């Protein structure tokens, strides 16, 4: 029995068209023109209980619109959503009881209240049984190291502390479905790891179904078994994380800052030149075929390098590649 079932989900936004000039302004007042923006275009997917799914896409792809519809905040234009058998928009309150939501940048905690007070209030709102609440609180205090934080109001917390508190608040009522929107954004690596560990431990042990939207591929790699990629309102990939890892996990990018303009370069096998604009040479190489040192060595023999940096491929790059059929080719 799928926990989340989405069928032909579509959302169209009517954006008012603004015409320039005085005539346009007057016209806009009396006979406004609209154009339709298709934010989500007939998407379909099912989530079984306990799945942890990464829902990724570039900005504007339709991610947040989908999440808003799934959480019942936004009404679909057409199509159906069933979360735990309910329509999240029509049965908003019942659905709300069983879900936990983390909106990465916007805290649900009260700014001036000590964390413990916020959690108490949330427990009251979600009608958490006092005994159960006590248990959960003790557990989270331990696993999220909240001891000193409990007396601290949110306004005095660092980003990492905020996020740990946020997770506690979102999961304190043991929701069956959890939506995590950018939970690790802006955090340093150590804190990210702790957050990821917590999510793994808590959600998996309770069999929660999780949808994670993020730009951080590290999050996806560590937490998700399945990835859904949305682009321009449509789902362009829905499958196991393994395939993504195999296809893109092996890639790394080196960017060299050069003194002079570079026209062409000889590169070792398994690497390709992405761009040479702006005195920056970008090269992508396959870790399984070549190595950073080999590429760097070869490049620095040919040109004068001022600085260089190593990075993982961008999500937008992956999306582009998928569009160009990269995924299909390998499989």
């Amino acid at each position, binding site marked *: 029995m799928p926990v989340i079932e989405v069928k032909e989900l579509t959302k169209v936004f009517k954006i008012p068209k603004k015409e320039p000039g*005085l005539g346009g*302004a*007057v016209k806009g*007042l009396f006979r406004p023109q609209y154009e339709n923006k298709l934010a989500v275009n007939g998407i379909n997917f099912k989530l079984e209980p306990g799945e942890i799914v990464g829902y990724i896409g570039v900005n504007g792809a339709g991610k947040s619109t989908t999440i808003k519809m799934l959480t019942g905040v936004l009404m679909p234009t057409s199509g159906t959503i069933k979360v735990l058998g309910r329509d999240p928009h029509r049965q908003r309150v019942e659905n709300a009881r069983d879900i936990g939501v983390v909106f990465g940048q916007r805290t649900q905690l009260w700014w001036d209240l000590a964390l413990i007070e916020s959690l108490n209030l949330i427990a009251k709102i979600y009608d958490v049984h006092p005994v159960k609440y006590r248990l959960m609180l003790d557990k989270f205090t331990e696993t999220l190291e909240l001891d000193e934080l409990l007396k601290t109001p949110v306004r005095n917390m660092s980003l990492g502390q905020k996020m740990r508190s946020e997770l506690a608040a979102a999961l304190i009522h043991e929701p069956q479905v959890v939506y995590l929107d950018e939970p690790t954004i802006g955090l340093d690596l150590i804190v990210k790891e702790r957050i990821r560990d917590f999510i793994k431990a808590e959600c998996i042990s309770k069999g929660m179904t999780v949808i994670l939207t993020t730009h951080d591929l590290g999050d996806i790699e560590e937490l998700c078994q399945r990835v859904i990629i949305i682009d321009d309102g449509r789902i362009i990939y829905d499958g196991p994380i393994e395939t993504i890892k195999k296809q893109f996990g092996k890639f790394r990018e080196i960017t060299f800052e050069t003194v002079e303009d570079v026209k062409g370069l000889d590169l070792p096998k398994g690497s390709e030149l992405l761009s040479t604009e702006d005195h920056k040479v970008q090269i992508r190489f396959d870790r399984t075929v070549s190595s950073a040192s080999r590429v760097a060595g070869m490049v620095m023999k040919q040109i004068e390098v001022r600085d260089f940096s190593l990075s993982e491929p961008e999500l937008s790059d992956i999306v582009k590649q998928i569009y160009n059929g990269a995924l299909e080719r390998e499989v």
Partner: protein
Amino acid sequence: MIQTARRNLSIYGSIFAMIPKVFMAYQLWFWIGLVLNVISMAILVYFWRAIYNETSTISGLGLGQTLTYILLAFIFMPLTSNDLIWEFGSNLREGTIIHHLLRPINFQGMNYAQMLGGLVTRLILQVPMAVIAVLLFGLRFPTDLVTWLAFMVSALLGFTVMFFFNWLLACLTFYTTEIWGLGVLIDGMTFFLSGALVPLVMMPEWVRTIVLSIPFAQALAVPVGLLTGITPLTDAPRVWLIQLLWILGLWVASTLFFRVAVRKITVQGG
């Protein structure tokens, strides 16, 4: 010749086309603010008219005189504004006050010029309200040039009194962050204490004494008294002298307090 005419026409045309655009671009707040002011004026007018139902003069003032005074006091309310306190507060909070103190300009002078500019802007924005007062409530502005000159001198003096008084209060921002609350408290009191709600002559002796012992009335009741003729022009020099004395006293007090406060901030840190 025709070319020039056509060009001029198109220039004027585009200027005229700007007017409705400006109208529509104007914030909702401006128009609604105007309505809110009209409501306040209406209440004042009807209140006083009802009071004057019983008698033709109060403390020697007829209905016409009183209404003129009340409406003019309402229109010239910006003379009592305490923007300076808010400026100080926000400057202090953002730390920009240090930059100002380091600049080789007279800090007080600079602020005075700023506030004066603010006053002029505010008064210009009061014009639509004044027009409505004339059209709707029959307000008659005095026409005598000498009266206006006497008023303007007194208004400037009164404004300066308020400036130094606000400066004094603003120094409190160095000591407390609750300046917001203080500002609102003062706003509440200013309404009555500036003489905007009741002409000074109508107040009982003891109330008038209290009101005249604080600076607010110097900024509003005193100049508007001259403008409406409640205070005869022959009294103008005496009035100005009193205002000058206020300025002197407050200037000394505020400068001293400011020096003390600055020392606190530079010695102890902000």
